[in-house]
């Protein structure tokens, strides 16, 4: 098992390297650079920016060097000093910016993830056991709708409903009076209230997907001969359901833990923009548009790393859950 894990990690290293190259290439792609953007904004504000000013600023930020040199400096600093560069927009190290938003991002993501699994698994089991019942049709229809509705609009619609029903669109993650307040019980409750819509919206498509996977898996498992065997042994239906089909159907579901966090992380971006959430999505989106290249690059790299890591975790979980693979490592 350990050997397998190590092998997988080693295989991931070259992938990560290539990803970092591509990331850097992509963030260079948009026309112009941070300086030209900055100059354009400044001139709108009435400031005059000469070519000399721009060159000086470039030299100051290290943007005058060849692209590959910029890349190596960036990578060198990451590997040796854990320094991911400097955010021009925030005038802070990239890490500081990320740190600022990470806490709430993780909170929203983890709550969403819990929501997904806690809602989807029981519904999936129910739909399979009561196949073709009204409840099955209801949830299947709902999950189809969930998959077909773009996140961001779902967010707008829920905000609208919340506005008409409760008189508060619940924008952001905190009410105005709590944004800068120290942590307290009231602030936590306020946060919880504001998290309802984001969690539903971000978790919706994942939940819909999981319900369908769980239902399909359960249907497969319910028809397996081992269920008949269990019945012939005299087990009660409830015991059979949880011991055999559910346990087997959970395997592929549990293995989605790995990448589900990643997909929540990235999937939340647009929703966060619409709902004005103080989490990393919108920040990074603006960095991407504003050519705040180290911030955007770090974010892309981070997301890619999360994906690689997620897949790794999923594979390991899957291997660990499957007796066939597990016993191989036991060395019989």
């Amino acid at each position: 098992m350990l050997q397998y894990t190590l092998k997988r990690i080693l295989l991931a290293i070259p992938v990560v390297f290539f990803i970092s190259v591509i990331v850097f290439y992509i963030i260079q792609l948009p026309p112009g650079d941070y300086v030209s953007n900055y100059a354009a904004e400044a001139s709108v504000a009435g400031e005059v920016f000469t070519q000399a000013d721009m060159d000086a600023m470039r030299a100051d930020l290290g943007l005058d060097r060849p692209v590959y040199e910029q890349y190596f400096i960036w990578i060198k600093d990451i590997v040796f000093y854990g320094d991911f560069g400097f955010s021009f927009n925030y005038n802070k190290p990239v890490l500081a910016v990320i740190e600022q938003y990470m806490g709430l991002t993780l909170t929203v993501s983890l709550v969403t993830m819990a929501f997904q699994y806690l809602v989807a698994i029981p519904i999936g089991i129910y739909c399979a056991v009561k196949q073709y019942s009204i409840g099955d049709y209801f949830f299947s229809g709902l999950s189809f709708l969930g998959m077909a509705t773009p996140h961001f609009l779902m967010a707008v619609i829920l905000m609208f409903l919340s506005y008409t029903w409760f008189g508060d669109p619940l924008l952001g993650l905190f009410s105005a009076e709590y944004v800068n307040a120290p942590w307290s019980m009231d602030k936590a409750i306020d946060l919880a209230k504001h998290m309802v819509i984001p969690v539903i919206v971000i978790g919706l498509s994942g939940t819909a997907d999981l319900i369908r996977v769980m239902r399909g898996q359960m249907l497969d498992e319910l028809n397996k001969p081992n269920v008949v065997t269990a019945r012939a042994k005299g087990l009660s239906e409830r015991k059979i359901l949880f011991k055999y089909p559910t346990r087997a159907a959970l395997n592929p579901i549990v293995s989605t833990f790995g990448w589900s966090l990643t997909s929540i992380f990235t999937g939340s971006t647009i929703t966060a923009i619409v709902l004005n959430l103080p989490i990393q999505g919108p920040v990074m989106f603006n960095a991407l548009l504003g050519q705040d290249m180290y911030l955007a690059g770090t974010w892309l790299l981070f997301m890619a790393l999360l994906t690689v890591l997620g897949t790794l975790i999923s594979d390991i979980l899957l291997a660990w859950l499957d007796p066939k693979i597990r016993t191989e490592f036991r060395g019989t």
Partner: protein
Amino acid sequence: MRRFGKRQAAAAEPAMDKDANYSSQWRLIYVRFKKHKLARISLVVLALLYAGALFAQFLAPYGLENYDSKYVNAPPMKLRFVDAEGKFHIQPFVYGLKSGRDPETMRKVFTSDTEKKYSLQFFVKGEKYKFLGLVPSSTHLIGVKEPGRLFLLGTDALGRDLFSRILLGSQVSLSIPLVGVGISFVLGLIIGGASGYFGGWLDAVIQRVIEIIRSFPTLPLWMALSAAIPPRIPVVRMYFYIVIIFAFIEWTGLARVVRGKFISLKNEDYVVAAKIAGVSDTKIIVKHLLPGFISYLVVATTLAIPGMILAETAMSFLGLGIRSPATSWGVLLQEAQKIDNIALYPWKIIPLGTVILTVLTFNFLGDGLRDAADPYKR
């Protein structure tokens, strides 16, 4: 020896059972597909949607550039048969719009002007366009006489007819996923097929490339690449870029499917038999391997379309996809981003309905095809 005997038996079987019940694979799929009611309905709906996109310029009363500041944010008009005096008209008509101000909020509001009645007319002359992009024409299916206006689904913040824009936007929203999936289908088939069939170092290289591309989370990659598209370029080129981006990300999934199928099929007895018999690679691929999973691939492709539609909508919504003067459903939905807009002008959410309808129908169609193509299901 035993293997060979088995293979012989398998080869002899079809000859023995030349029976009406043993129809071709496609015919079987067709028969099973016909039983899937939801998928059949979806196919019809999709056909209508695509026909609408094809003839959008003809079906829409107004063109893309048509706007009128007098009718900003006008609500949908009702097609009426009975007028204010209770008289029935065989020809449907709309009332003109009268603008006024809400005495409390001081906001501009529109009311029906029962003085002005415009009958709905068919085949009216209007703005010039090219029918199917080729034949110059100025005939529109429906319209009303000037100075009347026909806003079946209301107007946007610039006074443009939403109904026309939804139709014209569907040309982009419905074709991007199709073209994108088409390109990724071809890429996936060729690259995945080569990887699976030839194996060896080629397979290793292709697998690493796919792994790297797949390591990128889709959405940020989309965003990053879309952000790289220069803002002021011709619509056609923008369209082209977006399609390429979608195809570039999507092909890897299909390639993996193809590779997996190739690997599992290439060791099947009948393929090994063909190889031993000296059949050429191309012929083995085309005659023996492709038919084994092409139906599966069609299903996978169909099911990839909804994701692309949603992605295009999201990108355009963020201003990273199709941009003005061209339009798509995502662009139309930009106005629905603010809740005040939805509260005051609820018709702006209508394009959402078309997005959901399209995604749902593609999902149902894909499900129907999958059930029909899967011989191991009931």
